[in-house]
């Protein structure tokens, strides 16, 4: 898939942006604070209806230019030969703070997803192996969601049950906390949680081969690279429907075993919301043993595996959003990143403070200088 044109109005510092990207690579360069990342954020919003910078990710107020009440982003996106017009309008007031349209017609978010897939790679990702567990879970959930949009509703259902159970544990309101009520929420939570665990584990299994191969190329070493899922409960070897039922049974037992502790502390200790990923290099835990360079190579390999896997699942290459990644990579790994980008057929948007990091031929790129919220086509000679 590829973005034929992009526009934004009153979105962050982009007063009025119109951009015609290159079918291959669009390089956005300029000093910090000029709006390069805002352009990536606009694209990301069109793909996910979320931002990767606001908290919570669904918040809209920060996305609208100061003093304005509304902001709009839109794009023409071609996917498998069909071109569609996607548009998201954000407003500070009213019940529908984010309104989405496909080809001029209002759409529900469920129908909006799946037409445009983007994979973001930003400097934060490079800290994945040593960063907080929540960051790794977020990476995994976003990656799974890209391959199946309905995962979002499964996650939302799980989170609602989790909040209900935690409210029950704290005896909020007048409900009290009978063991019969807890059993109900244990059962619901275990069933919904098992679905998430099953999807995450299956995703990582699909990714394993590609990840290992990509790491071998990035690091040019024979070390094995692996990412393991640490669940709150033992996982069955087999995949599939019965596996999900087995995980649910294990989770139910675990919730029962944890009950005293959960009641004392007022929250649920076990479940996919507390699971984690761990990177291994040559069989050793990477966070503890790997060098800084190796850790970055691991993440680079993971993102590459994610992109290739998504391409296979969708039957169409996703759009890549690379936010100032080159400045964080050493020259050799940066060179490999561009080697990979040239090999695959994805369209990419790349921000950088300096176009010299960008190792792409002139024929495959269009450079824009971003200054004070405006992007102008660059006429520099490369």
């Amino acid at each position, binding site marked *: 898939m590829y973005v034929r044109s992009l526009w934004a109005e009153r979105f962050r510092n982009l007063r009025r942006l119109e951009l015609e990207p290159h079918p291959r690579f669009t390089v956005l360069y300029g000093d910090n604070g000029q709006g390069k990342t805002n352009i990536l954020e606009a694209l990301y919003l069109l793909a996910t209806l979320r931002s990767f910078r606001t908290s919570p990710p669904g918040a809209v107020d920060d996305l609208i230019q100061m003093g304005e009440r509304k902001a709009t982003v839109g794009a023409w996106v071609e996917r498998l030969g069909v071109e569609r017009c996607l548009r998201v309008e954000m407003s500070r007031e009213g019940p529908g703070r984010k309104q989405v349209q496909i080809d001029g017609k209002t759409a529900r978010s469920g129908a909006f997803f799946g037409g445009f897939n983007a994979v973001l790679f930003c400097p934060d990702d490079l800290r994945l192996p040593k960063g907080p567990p929540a960051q790794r879970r977020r990476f995994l959930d976003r990656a799974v969601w890209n391959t199946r*949009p309905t995962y979002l509703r*499964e996650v939302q*259902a799980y989170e609602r049950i989790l909040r209900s159970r935690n409210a029950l544990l704290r005896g909020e*309101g007048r*409900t009290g906390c009978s063991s019969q*009520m807890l059993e109900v929420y244990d059962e619901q939570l275990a069933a919904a949680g098992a679905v998430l665990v099953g999807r995450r584990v299956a995703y990582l299994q699909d990714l394993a081969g590609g990840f290992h191969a990509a790491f071998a190329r990035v690091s040019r070493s024979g070390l094995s690279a692996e990412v393991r899922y640490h669940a709150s409960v033992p996982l069955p070897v087999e995949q599939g429907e019965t596996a999900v039922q087995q995980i649910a049974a294990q989770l139910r037992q675990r919730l029962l075993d944890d009950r005293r502790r959960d009641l004392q502390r007022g929250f649920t200790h076990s479940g996919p919301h507390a699971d984690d990923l761990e990177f291994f290099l040559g069989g050793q835990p990477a966070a503890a043993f790997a060098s800084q360079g190796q850790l970055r190579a691991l993440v680079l390999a993971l993102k590459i595996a994610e992109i290739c896997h998504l391409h296979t699942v969708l039957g169409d290459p996703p759009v890549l959003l690379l936010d100032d990644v080159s400045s964080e990579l050493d020259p050799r790994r940066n060179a490999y990143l561009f080697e990979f980008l040239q090999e695959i057929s994805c369209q990419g948007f790349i921000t950088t403070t300096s176009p010299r990091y960008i190792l792409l031929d002139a024929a495959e790129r269009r450079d824009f200088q971003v200054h004070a919220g405006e992007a102008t086509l660059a006429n520099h000679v490369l």
Partner: protein
Amino acid sequence: MSGDPIGRLVRELSKLPGVGQKTATRLAFHLLRAPAQQVRDLAQALLDVKERIRLCSRCMNLTELDPCALCQDARRDPHLLCVVANPADLLAIERTGSFRGQYHVLHGVLSPLEGVGPDDLRLRELLQRLQEPGAQVREVIVATSPNVEGEATALYLARVLKPLGLCVSRIASGLPIGGELEYADGITIARALEVRREM
């Protein structure tokens, strides 16, 4: 009392769900122009629902007579009991004409997030009814909505009712009849596949 009857009426009307200032004003002027008898009838109807409608002591549905017409209807199957969250759900099922058993209205669903527990629902009345001497119910059909709260309520009911030796069933969820598969959402299709049946 306010000396501005129109303003007062607009304010009262705009308290209604789904009615904003604009609609309230339009309704107020409509009433002002309407024949006096029509307005009197409306006022009387409003008072009547408040004064004459109460809960049926058996099924907890809204009624003027106690027990309600549904509970008094001897043609309805006393072995089947359908549990719903709200009177509006009962009406929806009753409109289909395909259920000939009896009802019980819970007046809500379990929701720890909103502080609604079992004691806030008409559960005690349900249990009393099922355990009283001469109770004939064999199967309880739980017809709460297929969302987190509705499912939790159904699971809770199953836990409480099964020990009484009753058969507890849950209404199915899946594709709407007459709908088109391609327009159904993913979760619904997944659920429909999960609970598929042999032909």
